[in-house]
């Protein structure tokens, strides 16, 4: 049999995409999830703060996932858990292995990639020192605490101020550990402001900006770390070293979209996002293959993952129904001054009847600046004043159709400071 849609990954992205495709009339949908349960990383995110945008109420991670799992339970979407996708082919075959069904090759008219992301590790950032036990990525520690019920240390230093690290600073503290410091190499935090306040400030955990760990010491288990201030070149400044006696280092130094399947399938990738290049409806460079959530670009809020994934689900349903947008006219998008990337990377005008939402991250902290969209001729298409912009918070703007129609050639999204404010 051939499925209308196979969704790879049963985290928040896959759940929302599958549900949206079902609502639009796709009748044979299968979610393939490698874990034993649906929900993805939300299952270990037992703190609250999820759902404020989408459900207009505050939920924990498992509650947020639970809402979608319940909604799917009322549909005919089939689910394979404990099943790993080994390969996706350009002609939309999906190779799956599981204990229950063995090795299978499933076929689909459309595929939605929703594999999420993984954490950067110690090796990726090259922290010098010995190699004792007690160095964990924040997410791995979160799993030990929240799923397995085990503590992983008593005196903790956190490197990086990503959201998972901040959440774990509070979580470890509540479980009786002493979190000595959160150390961030950049001059600004990588996490959401609300997490800095609620997870560090509220527990008197110092945040050292423009600092890094220069040495991890200990033979069997971490015994201490050396922390030093860094200069503008992010190299440690001699003479600024501080010693922290600790048994644990948690790393919250970034997330990387997990795209081995996408690369092997031959999708065009964006080196800036580490995710597939997508059109306005989350379609990738292979027609009928869509991607959504953290596999495309790393989000801060699950609510936005849900919204993006619904777009992908609706688009997959439209594809199955035979709607294929015209390839031209095409508006390419690129990040200009202060903008690291944009999602989508291309807009097909035929498929942007109601305009499009653009998502991106800025490269530095800005105050009272403007997000400006210009076309090839340099003409300003749109401008959006912002009091505060920071790399830790994903930005989005909505470009109405009328403005898109004014553009000639590629659009550049950039940050402009000073000058004439609109």
């Amino acid at each position, binding site marked *: 049999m051939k499925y209308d849609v196979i969704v790879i990954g049963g985290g928040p992205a896959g759940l929302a995409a599958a549900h949206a495709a079902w609502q639009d009339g796709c009748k044979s949908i299968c979610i393939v999830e490698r874990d034993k349960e649906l929900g993805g990383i939300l299952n270990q995110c037992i703190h609250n703060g999820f759902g404020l945008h989408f459900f207009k109420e505050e939920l924990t991670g498992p509650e947020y996932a639970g809402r979608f799992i319940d909604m799917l339970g009322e549909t005919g979407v089939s689910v394979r858990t404990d099943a*790993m996708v080994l390969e996706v082919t350009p002609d939309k075959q999906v190779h799956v292995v599981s204990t229950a069904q063995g090795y299978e090759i499933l076929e689909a008219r459309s595929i939605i990639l929703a594999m999420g992301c993984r954490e950067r590790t110690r090796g990726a950032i090259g922290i010098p020192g010995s190699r004792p036990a007690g160095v964990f990525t924040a997410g791995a520690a979160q799993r030990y605490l929240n799923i397995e019920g085990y503590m*992983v240390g008593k005196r903790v230093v956190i490197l990086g101020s990503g959201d998972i690290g901040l959440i774990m600073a509070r979580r470890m503290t509540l479980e009786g550990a002493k979190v000595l410091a959160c150390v961030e190499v950049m001059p600004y935090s990588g996490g959401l402001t609300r997490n800095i306040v609620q997870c560090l400030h509220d527990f008197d955990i110092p945040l050292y900006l423009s600092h890094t760990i220069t040495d991890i010491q200990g033979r069997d288990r971490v015994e201490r770390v050396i922390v030093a201030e860094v200069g503008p070149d992010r190299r440690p400044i001699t003479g600024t070293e501080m010693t922290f006696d600790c048994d644990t280092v948690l790393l919250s130094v970034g997330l990387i979209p997990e795209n081995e399947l996408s690369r092997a399938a031959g999708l065009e990738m964006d080196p800036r996002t580490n995710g597939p290049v997508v059109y306005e409806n989350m379609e990738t460079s292979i027609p009928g293959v869509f991607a959504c959530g953290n596999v495309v670009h790393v989000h801060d809020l699950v609510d936005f993952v849900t919204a993006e994934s619904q777009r992908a689900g609706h688009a997959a349903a439209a594809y199955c129904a035979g709607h294929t947008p015209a390839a031209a006219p095409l508006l390419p998008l690129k990040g200009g001054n202060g903008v690291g990337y944009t999602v989508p990377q291309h807009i097909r005008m035929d498929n942007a009847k109601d305009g499009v939402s653009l998502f991106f991250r800025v490269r530095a902290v800005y105050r009272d600046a403007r997000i400006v969209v210009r076309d090839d001729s340099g003409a300003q298409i749109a401008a959006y004043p912002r009091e505060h912009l920071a790399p830790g918070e994903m930005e989005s703007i909505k470009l109405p159709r009328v403005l898109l129609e004014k553009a000639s050639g590629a659009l550049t999204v950039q940050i402009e400071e000073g000058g004439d404010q609109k």
Partner: protein
Amino acid sequence: MYDVAIIGCGVIGASLAYRLSRCDLRILILERENDVAMGTTKANSAIVHAGYDPEPGTLMAKLNVQGSAMMEQLCADLCVEYKRIGSLVLGFGEEDRKTLSRIYENGLQNGVPGLQMLTGDQARALEPVLSPEVTDALLAPSAAIIDPWGLCIAEAEVAVRNGAELKLRSAVTAITEQDDFCTISAGGQTYQARYVVNCAGVDAESIFRMTAEPQFKTLPSRGAYYLLDKSSGGLVSRVIFQCPSAAGKGVLVAPTVHGNLIVGPNAEEVHGSDDKAVTAAALDVVSAASKKSVPSVDLRQSIRNFAGVRANTTLSDFYISPSSSRVLHAAGIKSPGLSAAPAIAEYAAEQLAAMGLSLSPRAGFDGTRQVNRFRRCTPEQKAALVQENPLYGRVICRCETITEGEIVDAIHSPIPPCSIDGVKRRAGAGMGRCQGGFCGPRVLEILARELNIPQKEILQDQDGTILITGETKTGGAQA
């Protein structure tokens, strides 16, 4: 009474145990750590050198070339990953050209097959990413890459399966020689053996000192590495060396049998085998040197840094000699020790025979080993594996596609691992780009289940590397 006691179960001790297990002997292997392959064997360049470096006429030259010739069949027999991909030594100008012709001549005298001098352009035709500054190169087609700890584990497993007794956590504290046997104190126990072989790697000097005064001094030499993501694994298709110097064979850039790219090592003198920290200065040296060979090497693709300590000594050659009629030493086994390992074992066995040990063959010896590697299988083979055992259908390590079946196989192998890294070295789980971030907790759970011990007792690696320090307030799932 044992016939032979082998001290140390790195690749040298394991190779010797494997060699001697073919014979009708009672073999004891004493290892101080909680697993085999825990010293230099697990942290090196993972290269089988062709054998052009060592001075002609040395033991090192002879055993390197012999070992290199033995390795392919040995790895096939033991199901150890090995690829003969050849190597290039790069020259940058006139000075290096002299060095290259010297080692080319060395290689001819040492009997290295297929050596060829190339121009810079010829070298770049083979490896397009080489620096435009490369003026000359020496091609050695017999060089290979290997899974070094895999070789050690496989040899030790086969030795154990054929009757050798491995005692882990058994650091040797004293050896006393009697007329026709030795008494060895290790790990609180006393053992008697007719012959003792010191294969203690960087610490061979201190074992030597227990019965005799060594004629050498150990100069432990530490080398740091980058291991790069598989996306960089195809950057070069051969092992890329620079000209050797007094400090060693220099920084190499090479694919690994696991599909990654390895870059390193530097060389710095340290105090001992424990001194395995990676320093920022060492990484800077490796970074600069590797870019000299391959300017496009992207160290931001690094997934792990590590450092290993080599057993350099004041001698320029290996030291494989008895200090008495009962005690044989395989000391100063620095690079190319891994390459020479099977030949060192053969040579040591000959020495033991000369000392009076009888090497009569054991009936029913099986020198081969099979392991299932799901990721290397065709779809049909994968389907068959899952059919045979459903645990092959559950992928635990996403990055490397390692299944629960392979992990359980490793845990129930002749030398069962007690740590997450022990499983990693056998099955490959945690070797990939997320470095065990996802699979670590699950491997821990499987280890606890299969060994029937509490999760809290599962280690990251050597004894003392505890992961779990207690329970949360609501308690562990399997407290």
